[in-house]
């Protein structure tokens, strides 16, 4: 690690963003135990650019932050000097309902955005659980967060149509535009999706919208076994149903496979009937009330280690079996949730020691990387992440990934060490 | 009269772009309506008619010029074309280079190279008009074109590729110096096939050859393999010789006389498939036609014009027009697809001939393919049942060149009990293509085998098609694959039905 000049004072930052918008950092601002020196919140793209240029000149390591809901994602930072908060850049720049497109500043809270869009009967088709905790649009893009509705609407990568970024040397660049169909130039919007702030700061995003569904109903199946769960998910996938979400909940006390059916009332009615009929061979089927559906969330804290497994969707049974097997052998009772139609499963581990968790993750990673999937540690104590690297191997992509990083952030000041491949 | 390029009435059936006809033919709607629409946009009946594989990837026939072709001469002519009927710039300019013709072109399907696609060939013609010489390479790619005209059907811009390739071939024949053995072989073909009497004499020994199974002996002894490829090809194509039936000069109608029609006997047709001619005359008579078959008629010149032998063609054409001069017929009926398409173009092909232009126009206006004619006339004779599954093969010169697809099928479907099966990749030529299967045996064999496989996959018990060339080609491929399937012309099937003959009549043959 090269020595960097850290003769930076708070006043230097305040000169750029204003007195009220730069402060010294506190322990709450730490990322995986690494505490930065300062937190600064630029109010515009220009301020962001200036701030980054300054930081680059001074060699400061920067971590962009939106709602701070995903700061635990990735490996602990190699170093961290400044947290760049997008909290002040929270406007809707343009919303034209007739075009089903919205342009926002990256710091806008997803929740606020959805409320605003609901006024025109529209929505952004992304529903990560962190929405309630203040996740921002830019953060969702940077972390590639997603929720149950990705089954129908795709991830943020499928919804973003334009982006404005600020690179570590202060360059401001945009790509895409405000029209859904656009192949002019490279699709940098996609490149930045999931980049976790390592390529630059996302300043503005443009998204395509969908109409808000009028009605909704949740059909739930209690699968008799992991086989039944997997088979039921397959049946749903290959039927001509169009559910908004297909979710799995598998815990000690509760096992459910739920289908969220949304649309116009006659459609919801008919599809719910079809779904119920289809699922009845796999276990008990019932319709959930709104309250029941709402309480069924993903695990909400309390776990010590959170893991995400990506596998081919048809292997749901295999995933469940491998998880349950690995956990039971080490005396861990996992809480499993997942997007059953996509192949993404979330594992919340608690009640045992770090070594057990580490072994579980390693075992699962061994199995599922070979089958074309991946196992990522989403949240864990820093020490754990030293033991088990958060992302897993990049394989043949490593070299190329490094080259991309080098081009966009030659000095390596954006979130160093947090990303896959040791970037 | 060539009516292909007039905008036909969309409600009229038999329209080459008539998709209602297409899905009527297919009972399993494969793919999306969009896929069907797409297939229909290139004139195919259904997505299943567009080829799915290329043999190019399997490495069987991957041709580029200069690989093992013995017929190169180093001939170099610049400019490529002279002023006598070069391929017309206007027609070339119609091509917008969209590429929709590529998937239906048999040579593109085989080789996967741009130069062996209609788009590429037109491009070469364009270059030849002003910039490039005519040399081995150019001629090679033009020679490889089968002239099947699937591209004409497919082209959304209406490029008249048929006119372009014929003009080009004429130029090639006049200006390009072929290798001596190539020249000799072609000359031999053209001294033989357009002359029925010579053909009869030359193939007389064939009956003995076949009777005594000499071919089999030669094959077993390994001698056959050592013959030059083209000889081998010809040997493989030879049909089983049957007793020849003559068509009388004039045949009376059965019952009331509805029409007086002329009948064209053809060359290969009358020598090798004389029973088709006999059946045709019987059917026409049964449908109330007085049939006039002038004895003096010779070849229609189709093979010649398709090979670019312009002068030879014109001689044949004039003689044929003369033969029908005073016959006073309402229509002129032809049962061979390859001949029919040329006959309908007589007016265009003889447009420069001051003496014959008008007569050619009158002649061409009367020409009808026999299935076309029967449907137009409207059936009157009773059809007796023929319960059999038959695969109908669209001859290129009937389907693509004349746009006659629905009529032969209708003719068959009017026979009670007939189960007409559709062949997959129907748009792709069987490889016969005039003399193509003799001068370019390798690609022709690939295409023939491909067609034969598709035919076998229909599960039909016999093949029905309107062209003698196709019959020879598909049968040769089937034989090579160790199969055999009886074949018949649609009019032969109709004849058997009208005469109340049992199905075995059709099956116990060839």
């Amino acid at each position, binding site marked *: 690690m090269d020595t960097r000049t850290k003769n930076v004072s708070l006043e230097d930052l305040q000169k750029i963003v204003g007195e009220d918008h730069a402060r010294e950092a506190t322990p709450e601002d730490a990322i995986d135990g690494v505490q930065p020196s300062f937190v600064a919140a630029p109010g515009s793209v220009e301020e962001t650019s200036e701030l980054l240029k300054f930081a680059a000149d001074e060699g400061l390591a920067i971590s962009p932050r939106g709602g701070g809901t995903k700061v635990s994602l990735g490996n602990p930072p190699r170093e961290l000097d400044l947290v760049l908060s997008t909290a002040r850049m929270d406007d809707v720049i343009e919303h034209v309902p007739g*075009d089903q497109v919205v342009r926002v500043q990256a710091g806008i809270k997803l929740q606020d955005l959805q409320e605003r869009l609901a006024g025109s009967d529209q929505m952004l088709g992304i529903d990560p659980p962190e929405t309630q905790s203040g996740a921002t649009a830019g953060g969702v893009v940077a972390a590639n967060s997603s929720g149950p509705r990705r089954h129908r609407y795709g991830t943020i990568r499928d919804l973003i149509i334009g982006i404005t970024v600020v690179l570590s040397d202060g360059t401001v660049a945009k790509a895409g535009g405000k029209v859904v169909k656009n192949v002019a130039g490279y699709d940098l919007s996609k490149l930045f999706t999931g980049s976790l702030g390592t390529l630059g700061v996302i300043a503005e995003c443009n998204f395509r919208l969908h*109409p*808000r569904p009028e009605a909704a109903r949740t059909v739930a199946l209690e699968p008799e076994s992991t086989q039944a769960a997997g088979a039921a998910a397959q049946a749903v996938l290959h039927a001509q149903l169009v559910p908004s979400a297909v979710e799995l909940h598998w815990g000690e006390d509760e096992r459910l496979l739920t289908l969220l059916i949304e649309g116009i009332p006659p459609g919801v009615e*008919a*599809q719910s009937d079809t779904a119920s009929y289809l699922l009845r061979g796999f276990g008990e089927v019932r319709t959930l009330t709104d309250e029941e559906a709402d309480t069924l969330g993903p695990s909400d804290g309390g776990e010590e280690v959170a893991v995400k497994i990506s*596998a081919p969707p048809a292997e749901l049974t295999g995933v469940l079996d491998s998880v349950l097997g690995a956990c039971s052998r080490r005396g861990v009772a996992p809480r499993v949730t997942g997007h059953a139609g996509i192949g993404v499963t979330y594992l919340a581990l608690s009640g045992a020691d770090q070594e057990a968790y580490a072994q579980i993750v390693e075992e699962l990673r061994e199995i599922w990387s070979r089958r074309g999937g991946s196992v990522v540690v989403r949240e864990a104590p820093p020490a754990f992440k030293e033991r088990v690297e958060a992302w897993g191997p990049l394989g043949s992509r490593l070299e*190329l990934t490094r080259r*991309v990083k080098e081009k966009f952030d030659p000095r390596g000041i954006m979130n160093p060490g947090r990303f896959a491949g040791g970037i | 009269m060539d009516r292909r390029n007039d905008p036909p009435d969309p409600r009229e059936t038999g329209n080459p772009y008539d998709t209602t006809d297409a899905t009527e033919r297919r009972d399993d709607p494969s793919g999306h309506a969009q896929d069907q629409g797409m297939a229909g946009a290139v004139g195919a009946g259904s997505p299943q008619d567009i080829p799915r594989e290329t043999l190019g990837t399997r490495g069987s026939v991957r041709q580029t010029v200069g690989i093992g072709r013995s017929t190169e001469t180093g001939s170099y002519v610049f400019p490529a074309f002279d002023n006598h009927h070069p391929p017309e710039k206007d027609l070339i300019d119609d091509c917008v280079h969209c590429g929709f013709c590529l998937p239906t072109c048999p040579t593109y399907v085989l080789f996967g190279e741009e130069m062996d696609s209609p788009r590429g060939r037109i491009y070469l013609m364009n270059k030849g008009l002003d910039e490039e010489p005519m040399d081995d390479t150019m001629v090679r790619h033009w020679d490889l074109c089968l002239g099947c005209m699937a591209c004409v059907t497919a082209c959304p811009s209406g490029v008249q590729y048929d006119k372009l390739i014929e003009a080009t071939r004429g130029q090639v024949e006049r200006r390009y110096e072929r290798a001596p053995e190539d020249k000799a072989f072609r000359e031999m073909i053209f001294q033989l096939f357009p002359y029925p009497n010579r053909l009869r004499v030359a193939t007389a020994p064939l009956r003995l050859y076949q009777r005594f199974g000499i071919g089999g002996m030669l094959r077993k002894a390994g001698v056959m393999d050592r013959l030059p490829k083209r000889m081998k090809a010809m040997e493989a194509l030879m049909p089983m010789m049957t007793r020849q039936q003559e068509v009388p000069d004039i045949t009376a109608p059965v019952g009331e006389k509805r029409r007086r029609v002329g009948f064209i006997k053809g060359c290969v047709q009358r020598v090798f498939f004389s029973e088709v001619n006999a059946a045709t005359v019987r059917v026409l008579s049964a449908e109330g036609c007085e049939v006039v078959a002038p004895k003096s008629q010779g070849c229609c010149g189709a093979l010649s014009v398709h090979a670019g032998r312009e002068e030879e063609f014109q001689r044949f054409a004039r003689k044929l027009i003369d033969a029908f001069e005073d016959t006073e017929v309402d229509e002129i009926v032809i049962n061979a697809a390859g001949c029919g398409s040329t006959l309908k173009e007589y007016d265009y092909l003889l447009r420069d001939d001051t003496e014959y232009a008008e007569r050619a126009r009158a002649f061409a206006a009367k020409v009808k393919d026999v299935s076309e004619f029967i449907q137009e006339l409207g059936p009157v004779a009773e059809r007796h049942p023929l319960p059999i599954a038959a695969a109908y093969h669209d001859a290129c010169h009937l389907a693509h060149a004349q746009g006659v697809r629905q009529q032969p099928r209708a003719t068959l479907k009017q026979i009670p009990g007939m189960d007409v099966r559709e062949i997959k990749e129907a748009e792709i030529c069987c490889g016969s293509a005039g003399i193509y299967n003799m001068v370019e045996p390798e690609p022709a064999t690939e295409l023939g085998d491909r067609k034969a496989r598709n035919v076998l996959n229909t599960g039909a018990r016999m093949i029905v098609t309107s062209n003698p060339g196709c019959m020879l080609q598909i049968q040769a491929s089937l034989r090579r694959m160790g199969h055999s399937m009886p074949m018949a012309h649609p009019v032969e099937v109709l004849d058997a039905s009208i005469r109340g003959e049992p199905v075995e009549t059709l099956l116990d043959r060839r």
Partner: protein
Amino acid sequence: MERDGLISAMKSILGPEGVISEREQLRSYECDGLMNYRVIPELVVLPETAEQVQMIVRTCYEEGIPFVARGSGTGLSGGALPVEAGILIVMSRMRKILEVDIPNQRIVVEPGVINMWVSEEVANDGYYYAPDPASQIVSSIGGNLAENSGGVHCLKYGFTTNHVMGAEVVLPDGSMVNIGGGKAPDAPGYELLGAFVGSEGTLGIATKITLRIVRKPEAVRTLLAAFKDTEEAGGAVSGIIGAGIVPAAIEMMDALCIEAVETAVHPGFPQVGAILIVELDGPAAEVENQFEQTLEICEENNASEIRVAEDDAERALFWKGRKAAFAAMGRISNDYYVQDSVVPRTELGKVLKKISDLGEEYGMRVANVFHAGDGNLHPLVLYDNNVPGEAEKAEKLAGDIVFTCLEHGGSLTGEHGIGEDKKKYMPKMFTTDDLNVMQLLRCAFDPHQICNPGKIFPTPRLCGERPGPFRMHPVQKAGLAENF
């Protein structure tokens, strides 16, 4: 490397049948679907395996020879235009469908596989491949990937980039990477696949592509509505979208287009000012309901005639008419210049009026066919090349149309790509910084600038690395490039 040396090197990799070197044959590859630009390639090679592609690219990398990949050559922006003194790598012989995986709703194909074959392959299982460009019968998946092709169904279903799950790519240095999960979602690392799709062949050559296939919808209803002019038709479109309906496809054609298409493929369209083809698909109950609504909306907007497709055949006929639109232009005009501009849908009416005004001003005919749902227009400027000066006028008019679209917040291209043709307009849509940052990506993939160089960006920037010991980059030699 001398030409002969190159030819023999290629022949040793591919065998003699895989190398085309004769002049006339090379000429037939000098352009793709866009005839306005022609460059004769030095050599054309036709690989059949990914390893061969690697070896070819490796040779090019070591010798500093630029290369261009080509599929079926139907692109409309000159993306497959060869590079001077470069090799053209034609992928049309890599046409195998490698794996069909219905349980995981995916299929793995080689890049030369034709778009429509994918749908055909899985049709019997009740699936199809959603991106359906009008050229689907001949365009290849590799080409679709390079251009991020759309099609009439992309409003609802998205584009190629939403349906590609993974790709094996040969990078310009000859190494091979697997980008995108291919089997499982959310692979860790950067979204390289998303950046690769739509990169117009400038970042590498895909040799295996994993595609997502989609279950056929339960119900499909299609209608054709005739309107007095595009304005009224546009009103209907707004009404439909405003009602919260997401049609599977919603296409508009104006009078000139209708005329051309009628002459070409005779779908029997009503000869009116504008027609709208609307297709809804999805669960039956939903479709029925929304279809009724759509009919009402069309009527409210004064549709003079509404035809509902009664069966597959009629629906196929509607689509045939629409998909043959471009090529059908050849029937009413000698030449045409097709544009591919996008504007926000709410600006459509204004832009169409502007285009028609421009047409009048220039005295040239402009036909319009477009994807009304997403604002992607295809104005076809009709002209006659034989009349001196018309071609230039047409280009100028096309340029004005592009500027109009940009002024209204649109984009240079919705599906055809920038390629060679629209490079010059890039600075109108993007700032220098924007373009420089995009080129950073290119430098990461292709530091020596040999992979389809000269496309997309008007001024190529070298990446500060010397491309080979003794050879100045031809682009640099031509004084066209600057160093980063």
